[in-house]
């Protein structure tokens, strides 16, 4: 046997063995259900109580009424445990607010840059006098701003808010996390400035120059350390599945960034494989686990019922951990890389069906008979939309890795559509929902205009719908044209034009939804608007009870 087959078989067998070892060590009996672990997110007596701080008063009552039809609500929740939660929330409030505020700033900047880049693809002579406004730079500004600026900041804010709650322990050393956040955002701002001025490391997803990357890496370390310290000193026995996903994701992204940005190590083709190892793992081992972990918390919390199967969620975690890391090679199909590498990645891409189906079955089971609750809960709408899109984008990704389909979609706008289905329709929508849920607790202030949440949801949902359909159809036609030797290359360009224009339409709606979102956030943070239900950010704990609904 040659080395290629040996190595392929070796890596595959190793990951399978590793998978089973961990499943075995986690649960001796995988099929024995564990409702206690699934209920960790609730205080004693809290199951049956719905919870959506983003809902208006009337909606909140309707939500509770609709949920109660399916089983009586318990008695009052344990006051002591609720006090623990209030203390946990208060410990993280200021860092969370900081991360979310940064995230929103980058979201607006990044999506504006994205829209301009999109228009440039069908108006190539528009805004071309300045170097920083050229497509190649502005597109990268968009990517850096939304991936590192928006998603990473929002994800960090969410993790810092969730962990103290789930561990029932106040966040240790929140000042460190804020220092880390300051460093990360300094790095992002400097990186975007560098890219716009033409200083770039030149690899997709890794454009931020490594010298600036040091800031980001140190920032991550300053966040990981307090998180680990809080984890080790926790007050609960069980680690809820969200903790598994989010803490592992934090460790992964720190190491990914370190290896990916290591200067002077990677060259040529090997650098390309590292590039896509990193590029796909940012999605697979950072955005995805964070967002899946978020759904595992918020969805059951809103409807007041634990997830259907705790063990299935743990199975999903370990299969994701072992399979997702190796899928990046399919980006180099047909390229000058060892053949076994693409094959390995295709195999693991197909294996990704396991965690995705585990998640989807679990969520469908949890939501069964309760789908209508989305009518009353704005946060639930975002979470359900995101969860459904996770299923779609992952299944699409698995199919897309297959050689027959990859041959058509590779090098086309189809891939861009797929990336947005994952990063926007799934990850970003989940993060929107999380922000809507978290902020009333962080600021102790209600969203002043609940109607705007609905406006935001529909603008974003319709926008990404148009965007995705346009690029999927246009990209497919482009790929078919490119594979046909009888047609000139220019035909593959011309065929995409109407779809690129539709993409700009979708992008406009998405940007509009972000402006609504940011405006609403500002109104809330500045205490502008009609409702006033609680005290200011650093209020006495007694006054906080208003929003906590006791």
């Amino acid at each position, binding site marked *: 046997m040659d080395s290629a087959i040996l190595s392929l078989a070796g*890596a595959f067998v190793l990951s399978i063995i590793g998978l089973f070892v961990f499943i075995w*060590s986690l649960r001796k009996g995988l099929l024995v259900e564990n409702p206690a672990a699934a209920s960790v997110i609730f205080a004693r007596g809290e199951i049956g109580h719905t919870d959506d701080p983003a809902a208006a008063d009337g909606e909140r009552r309707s939500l509770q009424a609709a949920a109660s039809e399916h089983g009586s609500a318990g008695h009052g929740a344990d006051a002591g445990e609720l006090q623990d939660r209030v203390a946990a929330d208060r410990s993280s409030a200021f860092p969370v607010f900081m991360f979310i505020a940064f995230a929103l700033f980058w979201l607006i900047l990044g999506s504006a840059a994205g829209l301009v880049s999109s228009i440039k693809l069908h108006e190539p*002579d528009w805004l071309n006098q300045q170097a920083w406004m*050229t497509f190649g730079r502005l*597109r990268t500004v968009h990517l850096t701003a939304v991936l590192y600026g928006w998603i990473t900041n929002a994800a960090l804010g969410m993790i810092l808010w969730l962990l103290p709650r789930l561990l029932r322990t106040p966040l240790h050393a929140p000042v460190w996390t804020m220092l880390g956040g300051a460093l990360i955002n300094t790095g992002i701002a400097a990186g975007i400035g560098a890219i716009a001025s033409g200083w770039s490391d030149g690899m997709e997803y890794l454009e931020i120059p490594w010298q600036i990357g040091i800031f980001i890496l140190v920032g991550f370390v300053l966040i990981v350390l307090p998180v680990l310290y809080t984890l080790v000193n926790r007050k609960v026995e069980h680690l809820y599945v969200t903790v598994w996903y989010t803490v592992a994701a934090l460790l992964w992204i720190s190491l*990914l960034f370190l290896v990916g940005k290591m200067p002077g190590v990677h060259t040529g083709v090997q650098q390309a494989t590292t590039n896509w190892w990193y590029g796909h793992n940012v999605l697979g081992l950072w955005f995805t686990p964070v967002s899946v972990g978020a759904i595992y918390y918020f969805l059951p919390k809103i409807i007041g019922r634990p997830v259907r199967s705790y063990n299935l969620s743990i199975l999903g975690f370990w299969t994701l951990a072992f399979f997702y890391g190796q899928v990046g090679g399919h980006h180099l199909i047909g390229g000058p890389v060892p053949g076994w590498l693409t094959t*390995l990645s295709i195999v693991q891409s197909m294996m990704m069906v396991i965690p995705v189906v585990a998640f989807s079955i679990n969520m469908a089971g949890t939501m069964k008979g309760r789908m209508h609750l989305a009518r009353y809960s704005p946060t639930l709408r975002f979470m359900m939309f995101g969860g459904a899109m996770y299923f779609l984008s992952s299944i699409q990704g698995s199919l897309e890795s297959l050689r027959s389909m990859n041959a058509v979609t590779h090098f*086309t706008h189809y891939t861009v559509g797929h990336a947005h289905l994952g990063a926007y329709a799934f990850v970003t929508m989940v993060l929107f929902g999380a922000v809507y849920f978290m902020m009333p607790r962080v600021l102790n202030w209600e969203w002043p205009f609940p109607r705007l949440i609905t406006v935001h949801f529909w603008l974003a949902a319709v926008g990404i719908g148009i965007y995705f359909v346009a690029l999927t159809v246009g990209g497919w036609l482009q790929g078919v044209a490119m594979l046909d030797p009888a047609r000139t290359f220019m035909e593959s360009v*011309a065929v995409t034009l109407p779809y690129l224009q539709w993409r700009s339409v979708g992008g406009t709606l998405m940007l509009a939804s972000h402006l609504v979102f940011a405006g609403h956030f500002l109104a809330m943070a500045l205490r502008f608007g009609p409702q006033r239900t609680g005290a200011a950010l650093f209020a006495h704990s007694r006054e906080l009870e208003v929003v906590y609904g006791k």
Partner: protein
Amino acid sequence: MENELKLASGAMVALGVATAALVVMPYVEVRDVKPAPQLKPYTSAEQRGRNVYVANGCVYCHTQQPRDRNLGPDADRGWGRASVPADYAYDKPHLLGSMRTGPDLLNIGARQPSRDWHLGHLYQPRAYVPGSIMPSYPYLFQVKDAAEAKQEGDQPITLPPGYGPMVGQVVVPTPEALDLVKYLQSLDRTYPVLPPEPKS
């Protein structure tokens, strides 16, 4: 403590396997490839041009990896033979790319050796390729009075009729544009690749 250890060690093992497969193994496998004697290292002008290519994000629309016939008609389009790892021995950062909004460029120097074509095409792609959606790059050029340019010894570029500036003005490339074109002209991997040694 048990759970935290499982979490951290499991996460690290998973990432370790992935890193071994996608980073370390390719490193071991292509570490020793020797570039063909016909492939020369970039000259300093070409390397500067390559930096201009990186700075302006050309890689986001142009690949540099012609594929094998069974994956696409790249050879029929004149983009060259399927590339091999040795073709990239001097490439840092790699510019393989992932999009073909425009054509593959690994052999653009062989396909389009004309300096004037490249300069004019960068100034206004639609003057040469109708329907092109490539951005024009006016910031890589200077529009000057013809007399002034002549006095300073500049070499204006020639443009197709209708695409030049106003009468009495000429378009002069900046040093960045000249370097970029030198890099594009250097892109030529048309030399033959020796077949791999037969397996025993």
